[in-house]
């Protein structure tokens, strides 16, 4: 056990609303930027969002088409596996239910994939019934590229590595296929309320 550094507390703040903060997390007012690689910069006229894989009807939208879809403005708490929690974050985006409406799928799983090669796996039931969005605004402003803009997946009920930045599509799959962090040891499901940080938790 290391000796205590006199007076060191770190960036953490006392937990004010503990029923909203999962075990092992601390509340932050910042919005830390985490990344596994360089920030992609896909021009909007080359951007598209695609639903594919085990679906009856694949679908794809250009940026203009995407912005024309019905949107929602969820306010949610987000929890990063690196232990920070940010309360009451505000977003604007398209519900994944809307995106899957015409897809006609019964595939139990999907992989979200992004510019730059990042992937993460999810169960269909984790992203339907109002639980997930593809968001393009944060805090009333267009989503910053370092936070995943032009658009990122937003799945607040799971650890935030599942909310893939720079998302470009969802591929429906019959099996649960580990994505980037899952392959390196992070949990396939990632429920912060069960502290599912690593495989086997």
């Amino acid at each position, binding site marked *: 056990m290391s000796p205590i550094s006199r007076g060191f507390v770190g960036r953490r703040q006392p937990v004010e609303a503990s029923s909203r903060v999962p075990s092992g997390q601390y509340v932050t007012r910042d919005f*830390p*930027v*985490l*990344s*596994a*690689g*360089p*920030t992609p910069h896909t021009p909007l006229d080359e951007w598209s969002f695609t639903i594919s894989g085990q679906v009856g009807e694949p679908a794809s939208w250009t940026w203009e088409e995407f912005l024309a879809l019905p949107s929602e403005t969820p306010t949610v708490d987000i929890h*990063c*596996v*690196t232990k920070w929690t940010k309360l009451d974050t505000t977003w604007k985006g398209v519900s994944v239910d809307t995106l899957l409406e015409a897809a006609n799928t019964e595939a139990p799983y999907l992989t979200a994939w992004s510019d730059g*090669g990042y992937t993460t796996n999810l169960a269909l039931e984790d992203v339907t019934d109002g639980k997930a969005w593809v968001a393009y605004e944060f805090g009333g402003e267009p989503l910053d590229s*370092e936070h995943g803009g032009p658009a990122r997946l937003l799945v607040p009920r799971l650890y935030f*590595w599942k909310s893939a930045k720079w998302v470009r599509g969802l591929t429906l799959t019959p099996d649960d296929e580990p994505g980037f*962090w899952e392959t*390196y*040891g*992070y949990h396939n499901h990632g429920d912060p309320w069960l502290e599912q940080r*690593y*495989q086997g938790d």
Partner: protein
Amino acid sequence: MDALDGNAIAGALVDHFGHEMTMAEMRCSHCESTSLMAELRVYTKAPGVVARCPACDEVVMVIVDVRGVERVDMSHMEMVTPA
């Protein structure tokens, strides 16, 4: 987000290999180019540390602390100088 370089993970590499590694040369499995470990592009602000090939930017090494045990995955590189 700007990458750091292999100097930023020099301590972690010593921990794992038992000796100084920044001068060791590796070959990227994606593009076959060689570089020193010190020259890797390293992203440390993440759920783990991700090191990318400076030539092609593909992932060559990932370090994740799983329940207190550091796992170093080097499946996308091979050491040219023996580790």
